[in-house]
């Protein structure tokens, strides 16, 4: 008997035992005099109580919208495609022309063979050391008021039942002082995931350039990150409120929520050193964040990998790579650690990665529509 069968039997035996002992079973609403609210009622209520789009957003609403805008800002340049998932490929380490599969990076405590289950190590000490490193970095005077973040990415469009297309992209975002943001995405030519891969053609022949601009009144506060400060507890509270974390005590759920917000902020903001330090101290308090150890990132920089497996999406392992030299985030990787038969992906597979190439203030305001 396989262990799967044994486990299934254990569950069935538990059920049988519970029934035999007369333990409480499922509770049917009708049996306790309840007629459940219907989905239609909930939808009607949700629509009826929706915010008035024409009314100016309150501060709290604007804060809530900030995250949404961040999503929309980038989604704007992603075609409103059906079933877009992100898959990464590593054109930098190997000849892009003969890249076949996205390789999992070799971390000190995990590699492609065991990334799905490698436990890693306690990340607390490493994260605190990275926080100290970040805090020691000089706070440079901004050269301008626009926050420019440039990243290299490889994405794929995946549609159920259709072959995937891998598309190399370079993203640049300009977050202006007034809260408006422009996103430019330069896409290379699509290719088959197992086909030959031409090197990314940055903005020249054969590339597609998408520009999208969001107005200042869309809820994004350009100074949000700059104003976070360096007090760990205060920063954590602010992040949890902004991200509406469902669980606010130490837990895998809270770790996932904070990780998501922190990595999200790096993707379009210039994060000051002391705030970066607070971010790593926040994650140091989350035991579910594990240390994968030293690694060379997609652009050959020295990094330290930290990782978590979200409780609500255990098929993924999320990795952030942090520079041991500056304490700044170098990039993120999303690794599928369970097979995904619907799109023909065998684990482990890099679903996406982002390598942050630049994050600085500039006088340039970027493209506008």
């Amino acid at each position, binding site marked *: 008997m396989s262990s799967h069968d044994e486990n299934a039997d254990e569950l069935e035996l538990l059920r049988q035992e519970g029934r035999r002992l007369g333990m409480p*079973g499922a509770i049917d609403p009708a049996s306790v005099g309840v007629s459940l609210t*219907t989905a239609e009622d909930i939808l009607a209520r949700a629509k009826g109580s929706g915010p008035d789009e024409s009314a100016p957003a309150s501060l709290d609403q604007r804060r809530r919208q900030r995250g949404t805008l961040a999503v929309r800002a980038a989604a704007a340049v992603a075609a409103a495609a059906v079933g877009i998932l992100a898959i990464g490929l590593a054109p930098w380490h190997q000849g892009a022309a003969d890249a076949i599969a996205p390789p999992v990076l070799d971390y000190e405590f995990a590699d492609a063979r065991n990334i799905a289950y490698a436990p890693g190590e306690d990340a607390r000490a490493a994260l605190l050391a990275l926080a100290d490193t970040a805090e020691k970095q000089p706070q440079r005077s901004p050269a301008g008021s626009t926050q420019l973040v440039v990243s290299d990415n490889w994405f794929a469009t995946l549609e159920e039942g259709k072959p995937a297309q891998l598309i190399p992209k370079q993203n640049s975002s300009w977050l202006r002082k007034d809260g408006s943001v422009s996103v430019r995405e330069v896409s290379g030519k699509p290719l088959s995931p197992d086909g030959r891969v031409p090197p990314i053609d940055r903005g020249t022949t054969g590339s597609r350039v998408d520009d999208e601009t969001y107005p200042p009144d869309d809820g994004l506060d350009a100074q949000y990150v700059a104003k976070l400060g360096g007090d760990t507890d205060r920063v954590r509270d602010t992040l949890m409120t902004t991200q509406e974390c469902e669980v606010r005590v130490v837990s895998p759920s809270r770790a996932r929520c904070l990780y998501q917000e922190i990595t999200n902020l790096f993707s379009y903001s210039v994060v000051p050193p002391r705030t970066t330090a607070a971010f790593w101290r926040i994650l140091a308090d989350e035991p579910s964040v594990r240390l994968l150890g030293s690694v060379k990132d997609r652009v050959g920089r020295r990094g330290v990998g930290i990782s978590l497996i979200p409780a609500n999406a255990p098929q993924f392992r999320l990795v952030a790579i942090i520079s041991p030299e500056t304490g700044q985030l170098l990039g993120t990787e999303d690794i599928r650690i369970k097979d995904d038969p619907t799109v023909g992906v065998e684990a482990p597979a890099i679903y996406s990665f982002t390598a942050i190439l630049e994050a600085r203030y500039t006088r340039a305001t970027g493209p506008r529509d």
Partner: protein
Amino acid sequence: MQCVVGRSLSGLARLYALDVGEDEFTALFHALSGRLFSFAAARLSPQAADDAVSQTFETVWDKRTECPSDPTARIGWVFTIGRYKILQELDRRSRKHHDQRFADDYPSRSMDQSDVSETVAESDLGRWIYGQLTPQERDLFDVAFMKDVSRDEAAAMLAISVGTFNTRVSRLRSRIRALRRHAESDALSQEGEAR
């Protein structure tokens, strides 16, 4: 279900966010509301359980762009929201209880807190054993007892890995057996004393 995944600056949202339409929302509600009610009603009054289910699905609708595309992860996502709503309600009732102590309002509260397990447990022994379980063991037991729930789904509902779920099921069986033995030996000694 057709996935509509909005790519975003947020890697996680990019990974598995769905845009759930009304039909999909309704289907999700029909698939999970009964299970969630059963789970909630073991902890709250039936009316409060109904409220918790409603609030859960209101949040599901509000956060529909974050709904996981993976069916099992989707169940876990809904239940994570649901368990949070139940905790909120328990917390609210605990605070209300505290306030009501000063208002000398115990009777109304105790009526609201009727123990539904008494109406669904089929024996005193079963009820007693259930009453001895820790909150975590009750969570596991209630989810394991849901109709047609698979191990993967049950693990997702509890936000634990399948391996952990299996281990806990095995441990729970041992615990229930030990409680039964304890109850039976107590009954025997009481019979002996009676003689």
